[in-house]
Structure formats: structure tokens, C-alpha cells
């Protein structure tokens, strides 16, 4: 078995089952040997990828759905699943319109191919909490088209009008006649793709809106779920890369004598690394010998572009830059500030943060003459495929990219530069060149230390806010400055996301000015040689903290209840979804009722990626840390496709965002060297710091908005607002420094 035959595990139905997904099977339009394949996976029509665009032909169901001889249904998901639940939610959409029973459904992740591109983004990717939003119409249409073709086949066979046919649980009925989808599928595949299909009304939904467990839950609970890191191929080796201690650093010289003597070590050689650096790759028969060899390796380094960065002095330089910001992102006349009787606000600072997904980065490469296969938990298939191709001197279509489930990502697998895949491909290329016929597939792995030190951090940012208030606490002028690295400057995304020198991903959450403030927003994007990247909820991780703690401060300065203050502003701005979410959280939490001594309520609300999340929290201080006793979330995400998974996303996002407040949750650099390296010194919350989150959704029938990220931004400011009540002090530096 080689990589061409690597299996995709489809989860669900009669338990996990392995089905080959050789992409050439799709392209050949063949039934699988042994029969049963009826609507085959095959090459799509070019236009089919435009499924959700109005006025375009309907999507061909073939690359997405397959009906098996046992009447189970395999559905391919055009996204990465790294915990957010697309593997289950998108099949729910398709199965609803196909009109099969949920127990018939299995699902798998699609490989890189044009047909699986996001209908709106035009590349195959997962991000911006858009999987359901962007495929809401697409996956339902695919199901409806497949159903229509099955019904047409039945009507033709039975010589009855299509209108006499009904469907349910994977069967077509007409009068006394009935046939399974499996029996009809071969004939259905010969039917023309209809030009129009009707979709179900909300009242007709049997699957959408009902809580469904993850289709891979059983495999996951028994150790059977295969992630990228679990890839094993005959003759496969494992590679580790020794990178320079500073970003872009280069090898001056290395001595591999001791390392090569370790049993199981196959080869050691110099390779290019990210940001113009070089490093030393170790290829061995397993991770353990590779790791030992890496420790035995003697390397001397030349400092790279990042050799001078220290976060302490960086903060000082940001503070300086905040006094003369470069670009006006949003303008307003500040002269009314002259009439202020008081000012609130100050300087906010945010550290670099690592994503630290539980599954360390990895990718497996198998090279052949003029072709390559890469297996990875890729979040940007189109970009990663092209990057690997470029590194290997191939065309993108010569690289098969197989998407494997990932153990978390939080942004780290969505890299515009494809850093880890380019490095990995470079190692694979050198390995095959050096070893010729003796080379074989190579799995390039990262250790946890590589991950924490490896850059691509949530950028450190500094905000300053000066809110000038009149005697009643009304805001006369809001002067807001942001200093921090752009996420997308110098990447292929720059053209889309940077407008007039402003990186919109860094102003999102402020620039919308949801409270209708007299706001001036200025921004500077310094160039700092530390690689940065979006971190679950992107710019909102900074901006929500600033805006929502400031909102609280301004409300209190006006002598108003922070909930009432917000609701007034939402009403004035007609932000009905904000009001609904906050009202729901307030009502369900019992906000305002007396709490035990030493506890306080905190509230924050934030919209991101089209969804509004309001948190009400009950907080005390324990051992110098905030302790959340209960969080209540009011969420407006329109129609919720899978309430069970949606609840989990908000619960998990609350813990993820809470991490920002915790001592030890920051990345610092000294003379270009990252000071943290492990879960011992970069410390995400554990069970002991976790808290219950009661999640309530505002009922809605509008098309769903995202939920992978929107639960993150508002939790930290909600906690900080409670702490301000408890301590009488406003903490504006993250992580929070409380003294017990």
C-alpha cells in the first residue's frame, strides 16, 4: 500500500469504515469494485463549484455524495474539521434535503480539488467561522438535487408522474410502490442535473436544528480516529527540523557525528527554513531516535532577522508609536473633548500568544517523478497545495493534498505563507534527492517546543483610548489608537484585507463603532521580524477586550448599569441582535441578584463573524487569579444547525478566551529568543481553572452565521469587568496581574 491508497475513515452509520479516496477514483467516474456505488464521486463540471451563487447552474451532487449498496450515504465535507464540527454539520444540511435518515449518514473530509472550493472565497479553506454560513445553500442544494434525480429515476421506472413520488428515510414512494435510494441510484446517476430544485421550509426540517453528536465520536472514544500525525505508510521515516534560536536564523556550521551514531537515524542535512533561514533536518526511523539525534546535534548559528527583538523594548516602542499614529482608519472631530469634565481610558497591552493546538504540526510527504502526495490537517488546501508544488518544482495539479482531521488549529493551520508545509516539502525534496530509491514517505513533525517557539503568534498589540466625558458621563470624544503588526501585510491576503494602509483584521471590533461613539481611530502597523498570524477570532481578541471594558467604564462613569447602558445604545443603533443576545444572557443568568461575598457580576457583548455573543459571569478572586463560578452566554447566530455542537463551540471558546486573562499565558522574547517552550511555561487553562458555561440561543430562522470563533472575544472583558467591581481597579494589561 502506498500513499495513493491511503484510506479515508468515514465515520458514522454502522461505525467507522474505511473507504479508499484515491482522487483518481473521483476522476475516473467508476463504480467501486463489488458494486453498490451508484451516484459516484467523479470529476465535477467546472461550474459546479459555484453552488451557492445565484443564477449559476445547480451543483452536481456527484463529488459530494455517494449512495452505497446498503443504502448508507457517504458525504464528503469541503472543510477541515479540527473540532468545530463541520464534519457533522455539513452532512446534516445535505442529508436533510436528500431526505435520508441520520443513521444512514457517514462523512469524510474532501481532498484538495477545485470543486471543494468555498463558494464565496473561491479557494478551498476553512476560516472566518464560515463553514456553515457559506455552505448553507450549497450543501442543501446538493442534497435536493440528488433527491430530485433519485425521484426522477423512480418516476421513469414506474412510469408515474414525479409529482406522485414522495421520499423519506432514503426511500422513494409512489402509491404502493417503493424503492430504496440504493436500488435507484444507478439510474439516478444517468438523469440530467435539474435546473431548479425546491428546498424544504424550516417547518419541514427533521435533521437541521436537532442536536447531533459528532459522526466520529465513537472512533474518537476508542482510539480509532486518525489524525495527520497518525499517518503510517510502509517505509515511512520521521523527520524533525532543528531551527535557529531566532526567526530567520541560519546555520553557520553543524557537526552531526554524534547524532548520526544514534540507532535508527538515517540522514542529517541542511535545509531552507521559513523567513530566509536555514536549519538542520534529521530523518530517522521514528520520532524518538530523531529527537535524540536532534539533541546530540551540534549547530552554531548566525542570528536571523528576528535576532534583536525583545518584547519589553517592543512595548516601549509601541507606546512611542501610539503618540504619532500613521493612518486614520476612522475619523471624527475631536474638538468637543475640550469641554470634558473628566476622561476615562488608558493604555491597553496584549502579548504575543501561541495557538498551541494539542496535535503538534505535522505533514507527510510522498514524492514520485512529477507527482507528490501530501497528507496534512490543512486549513488552506488551495494555498498549501500551491506552496508545496512550488517548493517541489511541480504544478499544483501534480500535488495531491489529502485533508486529514486535525487536533485543533485555532488559526495555526491557516498560514498564508504555508510555513510548515514549505519547510516539510523542502525536507522531503532533499531526502528523496539524497537517498534516491532508498527514500520513502517522510512524516515531518514538530515537537511541542517547536510549536511554542515557532512564531506565527497572535500579535502583541497596544491600544490607547481617551474617552472625554461631560458632567453626565456622555462621551464627547473617543480617541482610539492601535499599534501592532498587521496580520496580512506581505502575504497573498494583503490585497483583500488591507485598505488604505489599515489592516481590517486589526480594527474589526472597534471600527464598526457599535455604540455610536464620536470615534476617531488611528493605527500604526510596525514591521517587526516576529511572524504573526490570526488566532481564533482574529482582531477581536484585542478589540473586544478594549471596547467592552471601556463600555463598562463609561457606563459606570455615567452612573448607569452597564447592561442598561448597552441596551440603550443598541436600541439607538438598531442593533437588535445585540439586544436579544444580552437580554437572553441577563435573563438566564439572574444578573443583578445578590451574589456571595467576594463575588461580582461581569458583562460583555461582542459581535464577530456575523454572530453576537453576550456573557454574564459570576467571578471572584482566588489565589490572585480570577475564578469564574458560572458563565451564561446569550448567543445570536441565527438558525442553529446543530445545537449540540454549537453549545460546545461556545463553551470551549469561553475557556479559550478566558486563557488570555491567566498569568503565564503569554509569549515573550529576549534578544530574539522566545522565552517559553512548553505547556509548563505557556499555560492554557486546565480542568481546575475551567468553569460551567450555560449557553442559550436566540431563536431565529435566518440563515446561520458562524460559531467557531464568536464565543472567544467577550469572555475576557466580562471577567475583567467583574474584577473591576471587586478590586476597584481597571486592569488594562493582559494577562491580568492581580495581587491577592
Amino acid at each position: 500500500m502506498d500513499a495513493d491508497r491511503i484510506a479515508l475513515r468515514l465515520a458514522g452509520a454502522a461505525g467507522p469504515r474505511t473507504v479508499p479516496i484515491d482522487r483518481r477514483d473521483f476522476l475516473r467516474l467508476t463504480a467501486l469494485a463489488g458494486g453498490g456505488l451508484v451516484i459516484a464521486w467523479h470529476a465535477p463540471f467546472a461550474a459546479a463549484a459555484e453552488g451557492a451563487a445565484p443564477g449559476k447552474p445547480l451543483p452536481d451532487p456527484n463529488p459530494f455524495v455517494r449512495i452505497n449498496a446498503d443504502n448508507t450515504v457517504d458525504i464528503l465535507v469541503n472543510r477541515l474539521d479540527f473540532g468545530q464540527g463541520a464534519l457533522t454539520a455539513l452532512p446534516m444540511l445535505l442529508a436533510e434535503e436528500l431526505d435520508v435518515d441520520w443513521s444512514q449518514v457517514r462523512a469524510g473530509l474532501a481532498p484538495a480539488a477545485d470543486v471543494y472550493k468555498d463558494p464565496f472565497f473561491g479557494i478551498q479553506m476553512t476560516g472566518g467561522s464560515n463553514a456553515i454560513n457559506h455552505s448553507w445553500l450549497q450543501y442543501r442544494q446538493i442534497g435536493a438535487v440528488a433527491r430530485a434525480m433519485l425521484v426522477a429515476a423512480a418516476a421513469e421506472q414506474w412510469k408515474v408522474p414525479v409529482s406522485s413520488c414522495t421520499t423519506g428515510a432514503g426511500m422513494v414512494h409512489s402509491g404502493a410502490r417503493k424503492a430504496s435510494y440504493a436500488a435507484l441510484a444507478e439510474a439516478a446517476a444517468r438523469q440530467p442535473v435539474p435546473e431548479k430544485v425546491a428546498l424544504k421550509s424550516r417547518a419541514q426540517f427533521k435533521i437541521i436544528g436537532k442536536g447531533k453528536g459528532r459522526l466520529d465520536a465513537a472512533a474518537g472514544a476508542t482510539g480509532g480516529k486518525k489524525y495527520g500525525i497518525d499517518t503510517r505508510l510502509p517505509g515511512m521515516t520521521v523527520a524533525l527540523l532543528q531551527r535557529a534560536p531566532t526567526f530567520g536564523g541560519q546555520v553557520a556550521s553543524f557537526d552531526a557525528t554524534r547524532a548520526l551514531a544514534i540507532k535508527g537515524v538515517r540522514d542529517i542535512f541542511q535545509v531552507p527554513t521559513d523567513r530566509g533561514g536555514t536549519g538542520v533536518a534529521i530523518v530517522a526511523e521514528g520520532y524518538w531516535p530523531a529527537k535524540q539525534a536532534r539533541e546530540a546535534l551540534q549547530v552554531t548559528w548566525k542570528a536571523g532577522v528576528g535576532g534583536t527583538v525583545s518584547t519589553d523594548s517592543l512595548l516601549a516602542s509601541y507606546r512611542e508609536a501610539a503618540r504619532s499614529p500613521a493612518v486614520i482608519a476612522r475619523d471624527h472631530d475631536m474638538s468637543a473633548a475640550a469641554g470634558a469634565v473628566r476622561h476615562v481610558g488608558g493604555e491597553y497591552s496584549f502579548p504575543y500568544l501561541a495557538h498551541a493546538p494539542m496535535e503538534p504540526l505535522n505533514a507527510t510527504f510522498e514524492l514520485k517523478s512529477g507527482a507528490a502526495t501530501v497528507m496534512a490537517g490543512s486549513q488552506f488546501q488551495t494555498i498549501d497545495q500551491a506552496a508545496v508544488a512550488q517548493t517541489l518544482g511541480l504544478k499544483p495539479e501534480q500535488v495531491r493534498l489529502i485533508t486529514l482531521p486535525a487536533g485543533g488549529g485555532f488559526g495555526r493551520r491557516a498560514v498564508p505563507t504555508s510555513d510548515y508545509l514549505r519547510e516539510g516539502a523542502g525536507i522531503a525534496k532533499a531526502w528523496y534527492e539524497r537517498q534516491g530509491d532508498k527514500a520513502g514517505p517522510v512524516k515531518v513533525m514538530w515537537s511541542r517546543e517547536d510549536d511554542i517557539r515557532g512564531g506565527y503568534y497572535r500579535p502583541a498589540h497596544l491600544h490607547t483610548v481617551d474617552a472625554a466625558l461631560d458632567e453626565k458621563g456622555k462621551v464627547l470624544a473617543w480617541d482610539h489608537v492601535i499599534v501592532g503588526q498587521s496580520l496580512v501585510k506581505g502575504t497573498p491576503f494583503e490585497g483583500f484585507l488591507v485598505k488604505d494602509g489599515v489592516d481590517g483584521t486589526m480594527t474589526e471590533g472597534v471600527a464598526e463603532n457599535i455604540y455610536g461613539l464620536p470615534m476617531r481611530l488611528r493605527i500604526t502597523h510596525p514591521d517587526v521580524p516576529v511572524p504573526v498570524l490570526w488566532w481564533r477570532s482574529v482582531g477581536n481578541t484585542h478589540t473586544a477586550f478594549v471596547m467592552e471594558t471601556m463600555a463598562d467604564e463609561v457606563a459606570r462613569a455615567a452612573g448607569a448599569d452597564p447592561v442598561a447602558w448597552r441596551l440603550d445604545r443598541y436600541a439607538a443603533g438598531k442593533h437588535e441582535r445585540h439586544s436579544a443576545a444580552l437580554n437572553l444572557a441577563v435573563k438566564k443568568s439572574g444578573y443583578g441578584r445578590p451574589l456571595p461575598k467576594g463575588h461580582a457580576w461581569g458583562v460583555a457583548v461582542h459581535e464577530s463573524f456575523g454572530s453576537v455573543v453576550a456573557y454574564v459571569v459570576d467571578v471572584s478572586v482566588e489565589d490572585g487569579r480570577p475564578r469564574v463560578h458560572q458563565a451564561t452566554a446569550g448567543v445570536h447566530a441565527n438558525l442553529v444547525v446543530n445545537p449540540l455542537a454549537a453549545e460546545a463551540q461556545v463553551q470551549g471558546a469561553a475557556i479559550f478566551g478566558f486563557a488570555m486573562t491567566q498569568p503565564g499565558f503569554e509569549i515573550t522574547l529576549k534578544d530574539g529568543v522566545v522565552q517559553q517552550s512548553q505547556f509548563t511555561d505557556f499555560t492554557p487553562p486546565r480542568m481546575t481553572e475551567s468553569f460551567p458555561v450555560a449557553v442559550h440561543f436566540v431563536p431565529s430562522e435566518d440563515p446561520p452565521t458562524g460559531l467557531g470563533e464568536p464565543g472567544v472575544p467577550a469572555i475576557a472583558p466580562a471577567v475583567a469587568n467583574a474584577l473591576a467591581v471587586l478590586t476597584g481597579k481597571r486592569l488594562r494589561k493582559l494577562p491580568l496581574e492581580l495581587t491577592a
Partner: protein
Amino acid sequence: MTTLNINGELVRVDAEPSTPVLWALRDVLGMTGTKFGCGVAACGACTVHVNGQPTRSCVTPISAVVGQKITTIEGVGNGRVGKAVQAAWIAHDVAQCGYCQSGQIMSATGLLESNRKPTDADIDAAMAGNLCRCGTYQRIRAAIHDAAKSLA
């Protein structure tokens, strides 16, 4: 060559005696259910049982467990408690990315093997060594309480 007792079977492992159990399982034996998260016993993803005790396999050399009973996520469901924990995990839809959950299930099973009515404080103590970046702690706690009930 080292002989280990894994999930009730004696298996021969061709690896240096200092090789951690984690890498013997994953790279030598192809048992990939046990996960690599940190390599320094700081995250719990690699948790297995050694004679019923939750143990971080990433820092346990194979030479240290010769003649002892090793249970992994692939075998823990053969026991009544492990099976109940796995069932509770599925019923509560605990996993998000799921990568840490093998270790979580092994730690939870270890807890319930020795304490059939764990309090929240007991759960905190037993599970604090297992990180989850998706933040599934609330459902983990609920699933452990539920598994305890089903075993009563």
C-alpha cells in the same frame, strides 16, 4: 527486543530500552490511539494505564514497564469502567477536535476505578494533568459524573 504486556497481549518491541512507551506504541507497534502532545508529561495526551494507574507514556521508558500490565485507549473498553467512560463520552459528545480525549478517557477511567463516586474536587485533582485546548472540560466533568452513575 523487549516484551511488553499491552491490553492483555504479550508483544515484542524492537526498540532501545530507553524508548518511551508512547513511541513504542505509536511508531513501533502502530497503535496510534495514544497521542503525543508535549513529551514532558505536561499535557496528559499520552496517558495509558500501568497496572491500572494512569501513567504518562511519553516519559516512561519501556524498560520500566517490563512485566507490568499496560492498558491503552484501544484496550480500555474491554473493562467495565473503561467501557462506561467511553459510552458517557459519546453520549455527552465530549470531543471537539478529540486529540486529547484518549488521555482524558484514560485518566477518567483511572479515577473511577479507584473512586466510584467522585466529587467535583476529586475530578479536578484527577484530571488537572490533562490539557484540552478546545475547552471541553465542562462536558468531561458531566461525562465522568454520568459514567459514575451508570456504574453504581
